């Protein structure tokens, strides 16, 4: 099963932000959305996650129109990590992570709440930070806390095979190299567990190594969509980014300086 965007376009006051995009995200799959600033990447993510409605075209979750799914039900199907707003009050890190816990109304889940939070904090290396105030953390640490929250939102019993999708808008922004790699590996792990993951990323090498498919956007149009080796070619990238790009034939490493 999958999330599908069919011919989606989005306009603001007559200005085209996205035009006629087709998108498909399957389970066990990582799809990276790449492109220069203002290409419409975050808008596309917002449309797929259901934050905004497309001007034309439709988004389907498991064959159902997204519009017909209540916002409560959507919260169980997909989680979103975006560029977050400032948080005014002094919540602790633990409280911020726990905000990802959506009430399931079923007693069998509630018993696992603290276990789930502890496991995820462990998984994201946040155990030492749990009782710190969120607002005093560095930008990178805050991103990691939000990532943990995004995972907790989709937490299920290990024997559950519910379908789940994650949308991540530049999850590696502000992270140091260690945590960048750790987070990308965690995403890969989630995809293996059955998640479908839509990702906006600026680092083309990360996109090339970790994704199953890549969508290249420019000025709201899809330039190319497919396997990393088909999309991330020197010719296409040079054309889209406006700087000379080289792709190493053997290692597939992309260089631009």
């Amino acid at each position, binding site marked *: 099963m999958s999330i599908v965007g069919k011919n989606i376009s989005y306009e603001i006051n007559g200005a085209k932000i996205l035009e006629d995009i087709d998108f498909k995200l399957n389970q066990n799959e990582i799809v990276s959305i790449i492109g220069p600033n203002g290409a419409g990447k975050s808008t596309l993510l917002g449309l797929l996650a259901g934050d905004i409605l497309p001007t034309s075209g439709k988004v389907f979750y498991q064959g159902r129109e997204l519009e017909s799914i209540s*916002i409560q039900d959507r919260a169980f199907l997909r989680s979103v990590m975006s560029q977050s707003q400032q948080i005014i009050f002094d919540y602790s890190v633990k409280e911020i992570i726990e905000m990802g816990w959506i009430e399931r109304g079923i007693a069998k889940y509630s018993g696992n709440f603290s276990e789930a939070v502890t496991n995820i904090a462990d998984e994201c290396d946040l155990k030492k930070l749990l009782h710190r105030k969120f607002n005093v953390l560095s930008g990178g640490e805050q991103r990691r806390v939000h990532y943990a929250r995004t995972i907790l939102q989709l937490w299920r019993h290990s024997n559950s095979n519910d379908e789940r999708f994650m949308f991540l808008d530049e999850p590696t922004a502000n992270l140091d190299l260690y945590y960048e790699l750790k987070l990308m590996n965690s995403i890969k792990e989630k995809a293996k567990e059955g998640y479908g993951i839509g990702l906006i990323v600026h680092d083309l090498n990360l996109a090339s190594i970790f994704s199953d498919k890549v969508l290249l956007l420019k000025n709201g149009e899809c330039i190319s969509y497919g396997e990393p080796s088909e999309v991330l070619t020197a010719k296409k990238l040079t054309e889209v980014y406006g700087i000379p790009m080289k792709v190493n034939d053997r290692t597939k490493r992309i260089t631009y300086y």
Partner: protein
Amino acid sequence: MFELISKFNKLKFINNLQLLIILILVVVLFISLYLGISLGSFQISFFDYLFGNDSKLQQRVFEEIRLPRVFLAGIVGASLALSGASLQGLFRNPLADPGLIGVSAGAALGATLVIVLGSSWVPSYIFGPFILPLSAIAGAAFVIYLLYLFTKGFGYSGITYMLLVGIAVNALASVGIGILTFISTDSELRGLTFWTMGSFGAANWLLVLPAYIFIIPAFIWLLNSARKLDLLQLGEPEAIRLGVDVRSLKFKVIITSAIVVGISVSLSGMIGFVGLVVPHLVRLIGGVNHNYLIPASIIFGSSIMIIADLLSRVLIQPAELPVGLLTSAIGAPFFLWLILRVKKT
């Protein structure tokens, strides 16, 4: 004690320390209730009353003056604190307060309208004593709706912006009250000064009981939104992604605030700063999550108001300070301190 609490604390979003604080606040509330009932220019022993050892006069003072007054102070304090806590959460703004953003002024304007014009427009037998509270609620709701329009659906437009809107709304309401004062008769004027300074002197059971009947369900209604207010702190889009119906949450917080502040102002006049100060004190003691903040603010606001009323009665005996003057005298410096603190971060 602490272990006992952690054993029984099956609640997910409130920690053991917070539960302990709430229990202590309940004890403090009972102490203030006891003090509020016993002390005053007329000493009454609660235990004498309980065992029937008091005079007829003492009994009447106790049942018809002291008790309704203390209960009114309690529910008004709770209402203002709850409204402050939930509005601060909704606006994601630590400076929100029913007084500062003009909600209390709107309620007072509604009440003033009825005092001065009401008698000639609405025959008193239609709503009887309830026309005043109803009109105050309408005034409060109207101001909150204005704020909603000006802040584009409570989108985060910065602390200064909302306070400026509040100042403008307050000014407009004062103009309205000013005009009404100008055209009022002498007896109406006495009623009007009561609104602007705040007092629990007019408490009687006929008005206090209905206040409890409306306000307590509003409390309960809002309490189950506490967690949604937490999620809202992540920003509106995030809250929606986590399954929160943000529109209905806004509606709920606004309507509850209008009801509880409208009723409170209609019964006791404008009492400033309680809604601002109490939630901040509660946050300083135990944390910011709304599952703790809202019940703790209700309980603490109630005790603080009972004590403030007690002080207003005993400080310059046998005369009485308007309680609104007292709370503003303490609250305004606190507000200044808060602005300095917010500016730093």
